[in-house]
């Protein structure tokens, strides 16, 4: 192993250790991640962690949760998407899907990670539960139920921007808890470049499977931590502002989710979809309001009449 790749391995182990600490403590705040990573890196400072390695700490939001290459992230994302699409049928409307893609892909350009291995693509799922998911590969799903809950392009943009935030901050990979995956990364299994055969292929495929099911489990059943959701909310508010949408649309859509969730409880329905995997919207609204979004002047959405027209014609018809 070359000196440089040994350094990479050491760095990845540190990064992984921090990721594990963060997962165990349930504390995913960016600030503390930076702090803990910097501390650990300096502890290991005499052990092959060079200035060059430390410089990449500026990429902590990426590095803290990504021991994978962009290409591996993409392939993991594809298998997460394929698993979601085994349980949810795509909504068969080229008009709605084209509209959601134009809107979503424009919003992604305003995120802190506008370029992905393949790019961001969006798909409406034919299901009435209120939900939205994003894979590490940039595949973003929104259910028909969630779409029906939004009442304007600003609100739909808020939902999509929140999911873009999860992708940009690599939250999916951060949700991996499988000991087998963590062990494999520590052993440098994913560093292999050669074509695999026999036992090796079986082992790596098993790890790939664990990675996929861990992420699917987080998206569909377990949910992210509240801190992670709040990070995605902050990213969404920023994207909305940059493009010129009303960032307060995020609060409005959260309020409507809250009402829908309450109605579900009162109707004695089982918690499912969004209400099962997300913290109470009310707590996120309070958090967003601390940033005083009510008083922010939106960037002046190009043409309100135009956004209403296209939202009405694409979404309300379905």
């Amino acid at each position: 192993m070359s000196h440089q790749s040994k350094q990479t391995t050491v760095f990845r182990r540190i990064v992984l250790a921090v990721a594990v600490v963060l997962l165990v403590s349930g504390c995913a705040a960016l600030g503390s991640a930076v702090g803990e990573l910097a501390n650990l890196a300096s502890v290991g400072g005499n052990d092959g962690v060079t200035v060059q390695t430390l410089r990449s700490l500026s990429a902590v939001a990426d590095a803290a949760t990504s021991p994978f290459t962009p290409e591996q992230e993409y392939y993991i994302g594809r298998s997460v998407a394929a698993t979601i699409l085994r349980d949810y049928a795509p909504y068969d409307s080229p008009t709605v899907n084209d509209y959601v893609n134009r809107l979503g892909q424009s919003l992604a350009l305003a995120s802190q990670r506008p370029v992905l291995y393949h790019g961001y693509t969006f798909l409406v799922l034919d299901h009435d539960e209120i939900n939205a998911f994003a894979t590490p590969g940039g595949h973003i799903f929104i259910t028909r139920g969630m779409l029906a809950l939004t009442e304007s392009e600003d609100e739909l943009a808020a939902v999509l921007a929140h999911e873009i935030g999860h992708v940009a901050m690599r939250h999916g990979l951060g949700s991996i808890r499988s000991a087998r995956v963590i062990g494999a990364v520590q052993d440098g299994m994913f560093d292999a470049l050669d074509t695999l055969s026999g036992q090796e292929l079986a082992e790596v495929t098993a790890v790939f499977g664990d990675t996929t099911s861990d992420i699917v489990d987080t998206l569909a059943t377990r949910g992210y931590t509240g801190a992670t959701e709040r990070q995605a909310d902050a990213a969404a508010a920023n994207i909305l502002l940059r493009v010129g949408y009303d960032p307060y649309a995020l609060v409005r859509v959260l309020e409507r989710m809250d009402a829908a969730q309450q109605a579900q409880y009162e109707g004695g329905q089982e918690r499912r979809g969004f209400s099962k995997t997300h913290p109470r919207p009310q707590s996120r609204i309070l958090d967003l309001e601390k940033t005083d979004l009510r008083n922010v002047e939106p960037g002046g959405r190009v043409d309100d009449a135009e956004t209403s027209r296209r939202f009405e014609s694409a979404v309300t018809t379905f």
Partner: protein
Amino acid sequence: MRTIAVLIFILLSGALFALSVGDDLAVSVRQGELRSAPGFLSRIDARLTYGEAVTVIGIQGDWTRVRVESTGDEGWMHATAVLPPREMNLADVGSRDSGASSDEIALAGRGFSEQIEREYEEQESLDFGPVDEMEDLLLPVSELGDFLGAVGAEIAPEAE
């Protein structure tokens, strides 16, 4: 109140890898776009494959001017479309002394993941057809038009 949004943005922007002129990097996306000027609406002069070696020769905001090792072409790429080779497990193969061509690097990386996907697809009886169809919904930035809103002006090519 704008300040808060700006602060949030600065915090989030910290995720960007810090580039310097002279850095030897590799294309970190499937199809890297080499543009005539900084901005997602500038003319695309060449498309580069994953793993292709580039050297940073200039930086302007989130954009970097690069020289492509194999062709000598120069142009602009978004800073999130390139990474140090070691971040892409290309440290050994990708080093300038190894003699490996960028094609060999790209193939090595691609084969690895595709092979696993095929294996996993078979094991789990998954169907990647609908995922491929979803990925086909990707549009060129130039077709997003009015949806770009205020970002449209921000990413427009600079007057030359």
